[in-house]
């Protein structure tokens, strides 16, 4: 591949310096280690790992996923090894990776969130936290916190008070006005905002006359949701004082540029990593091609589409 020119791509989010604006979306990149045989982790801006909870979670019964036009619906149920296992067994194996590792955290209660944040605060090798208040696939917590501004405020405040690490809050698109949520989590002290998580959806197996996935409802991701995500980033940018990270159906550098032009400082690649484990690096290469061709830099283009 062509060398990615450092200065034109470098961005900073809440003190986290990244060589390029491409992060991996939580839940689509495992604990990072799984991708070592397929991609150059060092060439990714930042790695965000699978959502971590206080105790291990088994996840939902199957079927958990179904393909949709240009996308997929999932209800994994935040299956994860738990924060302690992550710190003790996964994190040490990532220490040689020359890219920031961000832990995505999740709780069923406000105090769960605070406790997970606290445990990660003292862990070596965590560059920041991303607070998941937007998972649609669990009964308690998750999106409940992400669709009500007062609840979102409580969770983010509690996390903020429990860590010195940079705090990114991941917002749900399943709200009427994203700007209300942006203000709430900024008031609570978030350092940055990532959006969007999956959009709730449903697929019905007409032959069996029942929902295609066991959880009945799931989260829609992939290129199908990209225009919705771009619109929400653009709306969020109209009020946000903190940096935004755009997520939703990015598979190419051009896709990523839409989010950057709409107002995102960085982006996350999610579902695309399932199809090509090297997708995040390819998106970074695509962004490089774009800024080189236009003789500019990522930082200069954040929000350049205007209002």
């Amino acid at each position, binding site marked *: 591949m062509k060398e990615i020119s450092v200065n034109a791509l470098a961005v900073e989010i809440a003190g986290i310096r990244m060589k390029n604006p491409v992060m991996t979306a939580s839940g*689509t*990149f*495992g604990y990072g280690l*799984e*991708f070592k*045989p*397929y991609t150059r982790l060092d060439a990714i801006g930042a790695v965000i790992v*699978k959502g971590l909870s206080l*105790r*291990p*979670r*088994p*996840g*939902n*019964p*199957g*079927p*958990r*996923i*179904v*393909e949709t*036009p*240009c*996308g*997929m619906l*999932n209800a*994994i149920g935040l*299956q*994860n*090894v*738990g924060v302690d*296992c992550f710190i003790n067994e996964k994190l040490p194996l990532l220490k040689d990776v020359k890219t920031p590792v961000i832990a995505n955290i999740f709780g069923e209660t406000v105090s769960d969130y605070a406790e997970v944040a606290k445990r990660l605060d003292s862990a070596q090798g965590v560059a920041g936290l991303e607070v998941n208040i937007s998972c649609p696939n669990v009964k308690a917590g998750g999106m409940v916190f992400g669709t009500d501004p007062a609840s979102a405020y409580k969770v983010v405040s509690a996390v903020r008070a429990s860590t010195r690490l940079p705090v990114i809050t991941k917002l749900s698109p399943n709200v009427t006005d994203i700007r209300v949520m942006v203000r709430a989590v900024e008031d609570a002290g978030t350092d940055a905002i990532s959006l969007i998580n999956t959009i709730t959806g449903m697929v019905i197996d007409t032959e069996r006359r029942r929902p295609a996935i066991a959880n009945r409802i799931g989260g829609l991701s*992939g*290129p199908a949701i990209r225009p919705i995500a771009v619109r929400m980033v653009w709306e969020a940018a109209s009020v946000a004082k903190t940096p935004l990270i755009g997520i939703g159906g990015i*598979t190419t550098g051009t896709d990523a540029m839409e989010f950057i032009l709409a107002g995102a400082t960085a982006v996350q690649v999610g*579902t695309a*990593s*399932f*199809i*090509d*484990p*090297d997708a995040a690096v390819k998106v970074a290469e695509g962004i490089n091609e774009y800024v080189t061709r236009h003789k500019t830099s990522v930082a200069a283009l954040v929000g350049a589409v205007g209002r």
Partner: protein
Amino acid sequence: MENLDAGIIYNKEVGPGYFLLGLDWRPLAFKPGQFVMLRVSDGLDPLLRRPFGIYRVMSGGNGVELLYQVVGKGTRILSLKRPGERLGVLGPLGNGFTMPPKGARVVMVAGGMGIVPLYPFAHEVRGAVLLYGTRDAAQASVAGDFKELGCPVRHATEDGSLGVKGYVTELLKEELTRDAVVYACGPAPMLKAVAAMAAGSGTQCYVSLERSMACGIGVCLGCAVKGGAHADAENKLYKMVCSDGPVFESKEIDWEAF
């Protein structure tokens, strides 16, 4: 494990809706029972790769053959691909079969396209018995490949056009001796029945499972199946067909939930 584009050498119908796909890709290493994730379209719809069992290394060794049946959108698109076109290949993936202990009497049970991963297995374990259940005689056209390997083949067909009329489990009853080891792949009801029969007679049994999956490398966590009584830690309640399997010992699976 490789992530590359492979060229199609041939893609020919070998049975009703059955296609043999020859790719100019020779995996560096591959174990019987492993699979690949194929990208059947460069576009965004269908979006996900599809898992396919590796059937065999091409004679001459210049590539591999995958055998598939047209069942949905992805396989329909794949069936229209012509020689010279290229496909994204990720693999080989999964654990593959555990080889039977020396001296064991190996019984393979295949239902429909479940025949695919058993071919490379039979290639390594010469002389294993194949019990092959299909809808009709026409669907059983690849049985000849197994006969060439010296495998005794016994057929069961739903319409009775070949072998016994009925399900392949009818044939298994007579084969479930103490010294047998069963290797099964096929539709869920067949696997359930095989697992129950093996458990009943105390016979060791391996099953190769199929589930919808997005990634094939253990990260989307989409292909979960519930573990059996031996499932240990809380976060191991579910096993991933792609990365923990696709081959499991049948007692590892909760067949009630399957």
